[in-house]
């Protein structure tokens, strides 16, 4: 009798790129739901646009590179890029913002470097950085959380869709009336106006942990991230190092001058700290290779984020921090090759 042959091993784990990406999306779902609960359906429209454009861009790029569409189109990596980018944008941002950002991320930051597995920079962060630098005004138009005690004007579902697709607000709304700064921006503005941190936090927008609404979203992200850790989709090194490198300087500066520098809990629950730690910095393709390298990489991102937040020109520094450490990855990899069995170093 004759048989088919193939090289060993003949059993492999039932794992695939699609499964990994799918689980990451699952882990993001609670945070997305919370976001919609607090800030309206705008995010859903952004997600829809971001994902569609990401997939279309991926298809165009694959065709241009003369590669088969399958399995790359459905491996989930383009979807994740679209989702992460959309989550970084204000819910009512005009449609062309997420479209151009998503297309840029997939076409230039991913496929120009060689496609899946070959991009040195995190594509979603490249897209976001390009938008932030090119269209700073649109990226400040955040909404306040939909909480009962905050008396603020809320755009409805129809208004939200109109704003996104028409690129401007309907006649009965103005940006001043409906927008509200994010907790990080609010804190920054207050501190620069001379208020102490305690006075700044007296604003009803802040809860005990951080910005209200935002703290729930960040907790959901933390939960999703921990779930990914348990499933061993991501390792603890990058999230731990990044959060520690945000928390420790924050705690130190807070101890030095409690009035001028927000503390650990604020920084950890504000902005993109959690999203960055568990979903953005852990993007394996652009991160360091060895565990020691990952610790350095995560710590670098956390530290740079804190520095930009506290002394830099932008309210949140996660995107730029990630991109800067992406550039440092080859150097980190070169100097953190682990010792092989039987070798002395």
């Amino acid at each position, binding site marked *: *009798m*004759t*048989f*088919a*042959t*193939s*090289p*060993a*091993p*003949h*059993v*492999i*784990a*039932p*794992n*695939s*790129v699609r*499964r*990994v990406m799918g689980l990451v999306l699952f882990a993001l779902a609670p945070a997305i739901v919370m976001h919609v609960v607090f800030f309206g359906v705008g995010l859903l429209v952004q997600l829809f646009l971001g994902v569609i454009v990401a997939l279309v861009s991926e298809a165009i790029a694959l065709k241009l590179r003369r590669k088969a569409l399958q*399995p*790359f189109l459905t*491996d989930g*990596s383009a979807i994740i890029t679209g989702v992460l980018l959309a989550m970084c944008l204000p819910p009512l941002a005009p449609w062309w913002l997420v479209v151009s950002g998503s297309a840029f991320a997939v076409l230039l930051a991913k496929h120009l470097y060689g*496609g*899946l*597995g*070959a991009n040195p920079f995190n594509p979603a962060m490249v897209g976001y950085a390009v938008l932030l630098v090119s269209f700073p005004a649109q990226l400040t138009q955040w909404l306040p959380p939909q909480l009962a005690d905050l008396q603020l004007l809320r755009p409805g579902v129809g208004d939200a869709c109109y704003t996104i697709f028409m690129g401007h607000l309907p006649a009965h709304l103005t940006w001043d009336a409906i927008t509200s700064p994010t907790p990080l921006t609010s804190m920054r503005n207050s501190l620069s106006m001379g208020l102490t941190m305690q006075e700044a936090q007296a604003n009803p927008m802040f809860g005990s942990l951080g910005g209200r609404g935002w703290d729930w979203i960040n907790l959901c992200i933390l939960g999703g991230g921990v779930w990914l850790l348990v499933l061993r989709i991501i*390792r603890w090194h990058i999230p731990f190092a990044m959060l520690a490198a945000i928390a420790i300087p924050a705690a130190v500066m807070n101890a030095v001058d409690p009035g001028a520098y927000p503390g650990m809990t604020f920084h950890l629950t504000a902005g993109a700290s959690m999203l960055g730690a568990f979903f953005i910095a852990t993007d*394996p*393709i652009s*991160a360091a*290779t*060895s*565990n020691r390298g*990952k610790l350095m990489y995560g710590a670098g991102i956390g530290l740079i984020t804190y520095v930009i937040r506290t002394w830099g020109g932008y309210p949140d520094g996660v995107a730029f921090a990630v991109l800067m450490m992406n550039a440092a990855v080859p150097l980190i*990899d070169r100097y953190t*090759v*682990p*010792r*092989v*069995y*039987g*070798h002395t170093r």
Partner: protein
Amino acid sequence: MTPALHGGLRLPGNKQRSTQKPLRLLPAPAQVVLPLDQHAGAAAIAQVKVGDRVLRGQLIARADSEISASLHASIAGTVRAIEPRPVPYHRNGPSICIVIDNDGSDAAVSVAAVDYAAFDPRALCEYIGNGGIVGLGGAAFPTAPKLRRGQRSDGPQLILNGAECEPWISCDDMLMREHAQQILRGAAILCHALQATRCTVVIEDDKPVAESAMRAAQAALHDERIVIQSVPTIYPAGGENQVITAVTGLEVPASGLPSDIGVLCHNVGTAAAIARWIDNGEPLIRRIVTVTGSGVCEPGNLEVWLGTPMSELIVRSGGYAGSIARLLMGGSMMGLALPGDDLPVVKASNCLVAALPEDLHLRGMEMPCIRCGNCSEACPVMLLPQQLHWFARSDDCAALESLGLMDCIECGCCDYVCPSQIPLAQRFREAKPALIERLTSRQQALQARQRYEARDERLERIEAQRQAKLAEKRKAMTQNNQSGG
């Protein structure tokens, strides 16, 4: 306290089904095919010719060089042919085999049992080599040269490897259950040959019956030198380097041997084969083979005469049960997928798995590496398979060498966990000889170029000297003409 194995995998063992029944000795087959190169090192040299009558246990091929092993007839009969035949191991094409037809006489050479204690250690190593003994753990390394290298003035530490970590294989388990005394006898012989003062038998903790049998035998023996140690069941805890680290806490140096750190490791089956040779005068002409998989009707462990066609093993195990996806020699992680079942059982054949699709999980389409790092977490040698993969693709010899490609034990753990389903183990298997060959041929090309340029330069120098002489002559002639004429 056993030092923890780095990485590794917890895999379903699938060993229960083949350990339900006791060992069965198969009758001698009608024909045996004995490859001359079924061990690591140089092929043996045939000592018989076509038409000769041979007895069971007769020497039919002699060890050729330092690293080689002799071969003995596993049945009595006539040498039908000495010709190339397909063989079940990684070679480019068929190997020369001695084919013997059974004459039904079942006549054997009689070799007297010897008192091993009477031998001096060096001579005992030679005598063990005369029995054609090779490592029965799967690598088939000739035992005599291994023992010679292991001999030291203060005696090495001996380790017997009964871990058997790879899924499906259970031949060592059954050997330990039923022939524990023989194994320990082999341990005593090896201790004498190596002047070792300590012997540790390593057993994985998924073999409680085997472990208690070994402990009972050891207790009855009252040999202080022999210790039984249990290790956690993780694949590949049974790799030679991994076992040595588990017992001694030391690491075998890269591009070195266990004897460099005063350790020698042998499979329990090898020890039993040595005992059989010394005590019964029977050289290595049979071994236990696990025949298993959902694709055979009656899985079990068979004691098989070397050279028996594998199809016969399947027949004696109730035949095939269903449409076979792969026939593996070895386990599911490192076993070789055989193209057919008419191949002979060789010294390295520890297991035959007739696998149905549900026994395996074959890889799908290969995707690009997403640098997830699962591979380096799983690697027991602490390599970075991800980096090795990138550099193997770009043929960067220097980087592959510095990252430790030659240290890879090809266990397949990295392959197993890769979400992009990259055939990493196969890539590294292919890259190793390619690395050696490329380094050698680059060296040769460099030498050839240097010789060519040296020759060019020499010819130019000779030509320049000739021209200079000619110019001088011309100058002298014109001076002569001017002054003379």
